[in-house]
């Protein structure tokens, strides 16, 4: 069974207060590596068998219509085995 993964991230120019809060919490715990943190959403969609190009095109449509808000977010679609 394959998984179609849709990652949704706020566009770079949109303020991400959640990511900022995480970035501020990390150094408090001794993790000093982060210059910046952005937080997003990940959707895992299970399908039977290998996803067909037609299925992927449908997922793209769904990602644009429902899973993301194109006004403030970008998304990527990929297949994970």
């Amino acid at each position: 069974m394959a998984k179609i993964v849709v990652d949704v991230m706020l566009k770079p120019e949109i303020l991400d207060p959640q990511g900022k809060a995480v970035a501020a919490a990390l150094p408090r715990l001794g993790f000093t590596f982060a210059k910046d943190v952005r937080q997003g959403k990940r959707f895992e969609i299970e399908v039977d068998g290998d996803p067909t190009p037609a299925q992927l095109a449908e997922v793209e449509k769904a990602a644009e219509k429902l899973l993301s808000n194109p006004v403030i977010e970008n998304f990527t679609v990929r297949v994970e085995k």
Partner: protein
Amino acid sequence: MKIGVVTFPGTLDDRDAARAVRHAGGEAVALWHNDADLHGVDAVILPGGFSYGDYLRCGAISRFSPVMEPIIDAAHGGMPLLGICNGFQVLAEAHLIPGALTRNHELHFLCRDQNLTIENTNTSWTSSYSQGQEILIPLKNGEGAYMCDDETLKMLEGEGRIIARYVGENPNGSRNLIAGITNERGNVVGLMPHPEHAIDSLTGPSADGLGFFTSVLKALVK
């Protein structure tokens, strides 16, 4: 005049919105999210709350509920439509107004009385106010930061489509202190603070919110 007030699962402020309509002299008609019939209403209010638990994004799932189809059609045809708080988020998700509402910049849920200035009195929902009038109504939201790109912001400013702005310190990180905007035609208004909670001094901080509801009744008589 019949004003529909939509109840989605998780809507909180439908009763206050209906009460505000009656207080202004209109007839409030309850509309149900799963019923794609507007029951002959002349205008619609999408009230505040946490429709569908704010899952996915605020307003993202409500926007596709059956009642929204005829509402969107009617709004395109000029029917007055007011989205308050969560309703504003639904309007943005439905792309009836530009931009989007995102998490408050300080991440805290806000609940307080807020001063606003009314900046456009030519919409279906703001004609009872005077230009530049300052009003005090409650603000209560977690995702009330109005966001849009620079081009949209310039357009909103240039066309006078910002109907209300926060006075004083920016409460939630909204661009240009935007509390409410309208569409090009002026029949659709999205507003983050809550006029329905300020219609008399017994139950609200003022009666300043009543003007939104008297405005639409005036607009419908015309």
